[in-house]
């Protein structure tokens, strides 16, 4: 199944994320693709809201991964700093992706061959300074 949205500002991107988070099921993995500054972390914040997490979600670029406890556990990854997949060898992120919580990965292309097949893919594209096209592809119908 595929959905396409056009958002006019970060608040609307956040809202799309919130709906995604509310619908997310335990074990879901959401891969968010998009250039710097398109709103990946904003969408992730929305997903966290939808999962019932009240804490501030900050960019995990430096730490690579953060864990938040809500109604469901939220595993937030950012692979921006990963240049080659070998660098993931000692990090064992796959163990989290198989877990009960909901995982969100920003810059998932840095780990493309390791991602589970059953994943929700989100593409954020820049239209202009304010608008973004958000395409969501579900592995099921």
């Amino acid at each position, binding site marked *: 199944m595929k959905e396409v949205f056009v958002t006019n500002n970060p608040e609307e991107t956040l809202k799309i994320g919130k709906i995604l988070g509310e619908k997310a099921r335990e074990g879901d993995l959401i891969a968010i693709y998009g250039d710097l500054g398109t709103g990946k972390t904003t969408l992730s914040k929305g997903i966290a809201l939808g999962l019932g997490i009240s804490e501030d979600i900050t*960019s995990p670029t430096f730490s690579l991964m953060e864990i938040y406890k809500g109604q469901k556990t939220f595993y937030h990854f950012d692979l921006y700093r990963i240049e080659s997949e070998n660098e993931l060898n000692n990090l064992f992120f796959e163990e989290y992706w198989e877990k009960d919580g909901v995982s969100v990965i920003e810059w998932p292309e840095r780990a493309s061959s390791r991602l589970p097949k059953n994943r929700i893919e989100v593409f954020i594209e820049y239209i202009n300074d304010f608008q973004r096209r958000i395409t969501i592809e579900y592995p099921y119908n």
Partner: protein
Amino acid sequence: MKEKSIIGLGLESSCDETSAAIVADGKVILANIINSQIDLHSDYSGVVPEIASRAHLENINIIIEEALKTAGISFYDLDYVAATNRPGLIGSLLIALQSAKAISFTLNIPLVAINHLEAHLYAPFLEGNELSFPFIGLLVSGGNTALYKVIAPGQMQLLGKTVDDAVGEAFDKVSKYLGLGYPGGPVIEKIAASATERKLIFPKILPDPGDRRFSYSGIKTAVINYLKSNPQCDISEVAYAFQERALEILVRRLFDAARELGIKTLVVAGGVAANGRLREMILSELRPDERVMFPSPKLCTDNGAMIAGLAYHYFMSGKFDSLNCDVMSRV
């Protein structure tokens, strides 16, 4: 030395730097050996965790030996050993903490596990400044942007932090987008200083007074949007406009908090505290009855001296950690 000094070893490996330092009485640096991995990382525009932890492991013993040699002491002169255990990259943090545990166990001396953020704010007290509480601490680096009221060792109250990106992260990402390399701070500062045109203005970050949060995602996006629609623009002017906005909010939050809480002592630490423009902006806002301390550039980066220095106070008040203490990615 009149009476016998208390000698501590501090280890740090939470991110880029592997460091070991020897500090006497929590204030005199006898050795501070830092092995930076920036050369290794600069090809990658950021810290690469696996490279980081492998390099820390290769470096740490050599660096400890070097620190002892520089200080002219042996392992048996140590009264305590300290290491950063939070926050940072788990794999990297482990190297310093496990080394410290081995030393603590072998020599039968206390182990102190230190919060890296608190240690950064301690750095100025290793350079001749008399320790005084309370103070407002602004911590600015690649992984952190936060404002604290520091009451005593081990007692920090978070006043506000970034809701998205850290300031150093924004410098790195903007620098990469401008094609200027890693780390972004020094190179943006340099190019900004050379800007002849200074008309470009980016929107203010969180302009509401009373708000103590920081945010760097919006300005990062504003810079990228601008570059997309103005590909022929003058890079130095963009760097200047970005830097002014990125630093302005730090200055505003720091002074607003200090003045609201009636605290006259300020400490600005972390990698971004080495930025000359930030220092200039803070000094020009400073009132005669206020005092600001910046660590020297060497102590702005991650280093073992701040770990050993802060740990002295934990050691003196008997706050030790057990050998099964663990590392934490967040505080």
